[in-house]
């Protein structure tokens, strides 16, 4: 019985070169393309509707998680004052919402806490993407339209 040659190379990293692309973890291992599309649409639409810049970080956070999330928020774009960062660490089971000074005027901490509550209840059921999408929806509903987009 003949077998097809294995064309993927493995364990080819050296001291000076990176691992082969086939050894890198792909984005598809984390979320399916369908889930990515949902996340993408939720982020884009909530950012467009509100004029705020919503970004989402999914990964390990250094402890204390709050200060790491604030660090990430400061690097999240050209105008961190109008940025809202949702930092999510499923391994540590913690979610942090960080709003800049301008965004905090339209998204008070209470509204963020409510959105976080609905997110954590979804995360507790194992529904990461659904929780993020619902949280974004709540946050953008609360923030409303910016004055410049009102007719």
């Amino acid at each position, binding site marked *: 019985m003949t077998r097809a040659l294995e064309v993927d190379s493995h364990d080819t990293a050296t001291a000076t070169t990176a691992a082969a692309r086939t050894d890198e973890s792909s984005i598809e291992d984390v979320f399916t393309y369908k889930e990515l599309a949902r996340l993408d649409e939720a982020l884009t639409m909530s950012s467009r509707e509100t004029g705020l810049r919503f970004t989402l970080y999914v990964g390990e956070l250094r402890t204390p998680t709050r200060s790491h999330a604030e660090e990430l928020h400061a690097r999240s*774009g*050209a105008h961190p004052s109008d940025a809202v960062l949702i930092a999510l660490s499923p391994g540590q089971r913690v979610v942090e919402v960080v709003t800049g000074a301008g965004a905090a005027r339209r998204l008070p901490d209470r509204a963020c806490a409510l959105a976080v509550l609905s997110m954590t209840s979804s995360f507790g059921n*194992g529904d990461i993407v659904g929780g993020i999408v619902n949280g974004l929806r709540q946050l953008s509903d609360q923030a409303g339209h910016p004055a410049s987009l009102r007719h």
Partner: protein
Amino acid sequence: MNVAEALLVFAGIPLAIVVVLALLTLKPGANRRPRYKPGQAWDHAPLWFEPHPAHAPGGGHGGGETAAIGSSVYGERHGSDATATHAVSGGQSHGSSSTAHAAQPAGPLGGARGTW
């Protein structure tokens, strides 16, 4: 109905149904990723998602202009790579990116935190 027939009807048929149902529950899980369960370790590289920049200011709807929908996901980088990634994601010119992306103070920060 003799003993063999009775066994076949009252033990064989239920057993066959149970086996079929068991196989049905096992089959679809074979090629699917394991779903995240709370408490599981998350050993993926950090990801940073960001919205698409609006092309026309204030032109979200109407006009029939469709903006490309694709996933704008960036792997979180560390060290010197971090500046490069966020210079791209911030949509800035390279000249100002080095100063702009050194952590800017964004005023008093608000927000919330939750655990599950």
